[in-house]
């Protein structure tokens, strides 16, 4: 339960992880690990194999307007704690290596993050729409996408 970034940092160093930018304390998790998106694939392996975070809870994205953030929530059965991985992505073409070879459960989470936030996951096995219909062109969870009250709207049914 207690945040313990030193332990994570020590373990990462021992495992020879590259691309770790910062290990911050985080309430409710062992640490929040900031990493460079280029070294994602290798780091995922380190976290799963060396640190024992075998379970990927979720993948999410945040639109910070000037940049995107992608975060991964991991859980370790052995030490019973969470850790958050987080990477800042470029605002123009946000993309990062997929985590689904490491954690197969990332498949659907990444599909969701791609379709709602607009973060592209490279080498994803099946990156297609999950929640919205095929061909939907917007990414609703981006800040620029605003909701508004529906006005009177006429719907016509057209048979094809």
């Amino acid at each position: 339960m207690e945040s313990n970034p030193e332990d994570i940092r020590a373990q990462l160093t021992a495992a020879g992880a590259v691309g770790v930018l910062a290990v911050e304390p985080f309430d409710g998790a062992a640490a929040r690990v900031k990493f460079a998106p280029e070294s994602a694939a290798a780091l995922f392996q380190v976290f799963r194999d060396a640190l024992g975070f075998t379970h990927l809870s979720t993948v999410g994205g945040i639109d910070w307007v000037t940049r995107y953030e992608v975060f991964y929530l991991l859980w370790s059965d052995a030490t019973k704690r969470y850790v958050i991985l987080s990477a800042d992505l470029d605002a123009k073409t946000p993309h990062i290596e997929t985590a689904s070879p490491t954690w197969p459960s990332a498949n659907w989470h990444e599909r969701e993050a791609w379709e709602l936030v607009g973060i592209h996951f490279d080498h994803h096995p099946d990156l297609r729409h999950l929640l919205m219909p095929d061909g939907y062109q917007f990414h609703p969870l981006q800040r620029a996408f605003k909701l508004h009250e529906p006005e009177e709207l006429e719907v016509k049914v057209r048979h094809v």
Partner: protein
Amino acid sequence: MSAVAPAAPLPAAPKPGPVVGPGGELPVVTNDVTFVEIETLRSREFLPAAKEALSAMLKEQGESKLIRPVFNWAGRNSLFPLHWGLACCAIEFAAAFGARWDAERFGVVPRSSPRQCDLLIVNGTVTWKVAHKLIALYEQMPEPKWVIAMGNCATGGGPFRTAYSVVPGVDKLVPVDVYIAGCPPRPEALLDGILRLEALIRERGE
């Protein structure tokens, strides 16, 4: 227009004009009129014929003062709703068929096939993705048929009406006979709505 066409500047700005997915599942936006394209295999064939047959039958019945009330009585006392759960209201819909409220008392028995139903109870949020399926189901039901919009999402989108994916009211897609307010309505409120529909059928003499 709801959020299907946000005015927001986006990195990959969509071209104006119809937005059609491969399955034709997206609402098409042109000049504030939303088309829902549906691909119904059977409905197109039988629908005109069905309407014709029904009107002929009703006309015939209209001449007979004896038969028409009998059929009206039968029709309103044996409403088979479609066994279809959309969202939260579906749980209360199920509870209404549970032991405590037992909607079967009124002859209301859910059937799984739309062919055997008279009543479409829209019990939950209708999204644009499911809109054309809803219309197809409605069209697969034989005449005469009725629609109850159960709960606020079906009535007017409810708390989700501002969302980009939600149809703000199922009356945009199919004609609604009775609205039931509630979020979700109690099972009693659903029964009340069904009784209201029965009264309505008697009133209209359908």
